[in-house]
């Protein structure tokens, strides 16, 4: 029995705003010298504290949505998502439920498009780790990260292979980095990945087709490579279960990088009862056309369009990708284009193949070395031209009889004989004179 992988991704991105999502605490949990030094009554969930949303974070979230091709809501709000866990100080997370800032987007990949269901804003939880203290197993909690702005990106189950997953994730990361709103450093927890995986018997189960009745959530994925591995290992695991005529258990599993497998964490009910309701402490956010235009003006040229632009100038795609990823090379090439657009493709090749030291040579200087100085000295050219004419008497006779294109033949022959160094104008003059005799 052959199966089709069906996967949706959930990506959490920590924004690099100066302050947290609902209070003025410093947003720098990874570099904090000690635990619990960037907290206040709000992000510690103290009695009587109230949230006020960070405008910059909201704009950054909308910017990400725009860059991922999303529609932007006209009216949006924050909702409370309730569950109990020591890393959640209020007993609820301020998130977005049914009116997210961004929805219905699309990211193209070479394997096909991946639709973006939504991009919304929420607050991060505190960080917990486990230790043994006085012989007892305990959890230690650090609230430096509590309430840091988090953007959640959810895709439709359009990812169909590990390769597509990698390409998609890299593309999203590159886009977000270009926007300058987040570092997406997975090692620092700046970008977190979750996969929702299932298999279908139906080979034509593309996005929008019939979905199977189960879903396995995989967490603890710390790199794009591990994401792809998780898909591979889950594909194998589900296939084996389905082959036996059973259905994989609907649950949450953790990825184990040491064994490249997943282990069961807890059984996932259909939907945990988060008891969502609109947060009464935060008035709605209305995104006017004027505000949206202002946010749109922050959209820089995104990597994809830059690559297409270079391809149009004659650069090969693989070369273009390398150039675009390198700010310095890209600027160098931009200058070459301004000076001589015909040289862009050559310059791109030379840059990538390290044939030009762009740190030392300016674009102007580079172009000078490429444009060889043409031979205009008649004393050099005349003998060459005379030899070509004497070597080709029939062509000369044709020309004199009225065949004009024989002339082009002679010019070509001279250029060839001089390895392209003869100055075409001088050649033209000498030939004209010689043939008119």
């Amino acid at each position, binding site marked *: 029995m052959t199966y089709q992988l069906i996967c949706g991704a959930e990506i959490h991105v920590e924004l690099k705003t*100066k302050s947290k999502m609902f209070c003025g605490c*410093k947003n720098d949990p990874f570099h904090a010298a000690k*635990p*619990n030094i960037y907290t206040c009554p709000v992000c510690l969930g103290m009695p009587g504290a109230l949230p*006020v*949303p960070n405008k910059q974070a909201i704009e950054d979230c909308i910017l990400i949505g725009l860059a991922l091709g999303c529609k932007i809501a006209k009216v949006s709000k924050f909702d409370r998502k309730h569950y109990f866990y020591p890393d959640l100080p209020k007993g609820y997370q301020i998130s977005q439920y049914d009116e997210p800032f961004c929805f219905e987007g699309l990211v193209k990949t070479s394997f096909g498009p991946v639709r973006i269901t939504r991009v919304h804003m929420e607050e991060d939880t505190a960080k917990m780790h486990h230790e043994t203290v006085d012989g007892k197993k*305990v*959890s230690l909690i650090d609230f430096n990260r509590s309430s840091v702005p988090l953007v959640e990106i959810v895709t439709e189950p359009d990812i169909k292979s590990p390769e597509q997953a990698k390409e998609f994730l890299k593309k999203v990361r590159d886009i977000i980095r270009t926007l300058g709103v987040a570092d997406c450093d997975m090692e620092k927890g700046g970008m977190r990945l979750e996969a929702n995986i299932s298999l279908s018997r139906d080979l034509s189960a593309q996005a929008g087709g019939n979905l199977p009745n189960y879903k396995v959530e995989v967490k603890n994925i710390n790199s794009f490579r591990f994401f792809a591995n998780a898909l591979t290992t889950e594909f194998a695991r589900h296939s084996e279960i389905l082959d036996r005529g059973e259905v994989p258990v609907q649950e949450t599993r953790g990825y184990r990088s040491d064994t490249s497998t997943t282990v069961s964490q807890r059984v996932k009910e259909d939907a945990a009862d988060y008891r969502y309701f609109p947060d009464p402490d935060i*008035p709605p956010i209305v995104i006017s056309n004027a505000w949206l235009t202002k946010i749109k003006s922050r959209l820089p040229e995104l990597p994809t369009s830059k690559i297409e632009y270079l391809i149009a100038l004659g650069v090969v795609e693989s070369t273009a990708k390398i150039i675009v990823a390198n700010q310095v090379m890209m600027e160098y090439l931009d200058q070459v284009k301004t000076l001589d657009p015909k040289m862009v493709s050559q310059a791109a090749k030379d840059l990538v193949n390290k044939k030009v030291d762009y740190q030392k040579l300016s674009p102007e200087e580079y172009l000078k070395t490429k444009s060889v100085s043409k031979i205009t000295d008649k004393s050099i050219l005349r003998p060459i031209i005379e030899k070509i004419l004497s070597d080709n008497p029939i062509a000369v006779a044709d020309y004199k009889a009225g065949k004009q294109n024989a002339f082009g033949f002679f010019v070509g022959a001279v250029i060839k004989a001089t390895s392209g160094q003869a100055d075409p104008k001088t050649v033209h003059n000498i030939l004209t004179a010689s043939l008119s005799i």
Partner: protein
Amino acid sequence: MTNNQITNQDVQHLAKLVSLPLTDDRLNKLVDQITTTFEYINTLQAIDTDSTQETNQVTGLENIMREDVVEESRMLSQNQALQNAKHTHNGYFLVPAILE
């Protein structure tokens, strides 16, 4: 619940969701009290609100946000943050291990 009775099981499930430890005595009392209250509340179902919009904010305010600046004046020192906690360790809040 609109037409059914609220059961002991319902109350136990909810108590778990909201982390309220219930003794049997409390549980039974709660079921009775909640049932009585809901009889009163359910009278609302008779009011037609099919074409009515919801109002979750009476203020009429919109777009109340803060600028992205670090505000030292409200930030607490580590000692202050931990001051009211019963269990701490090396600058962290401490709880018995959460079993996954």
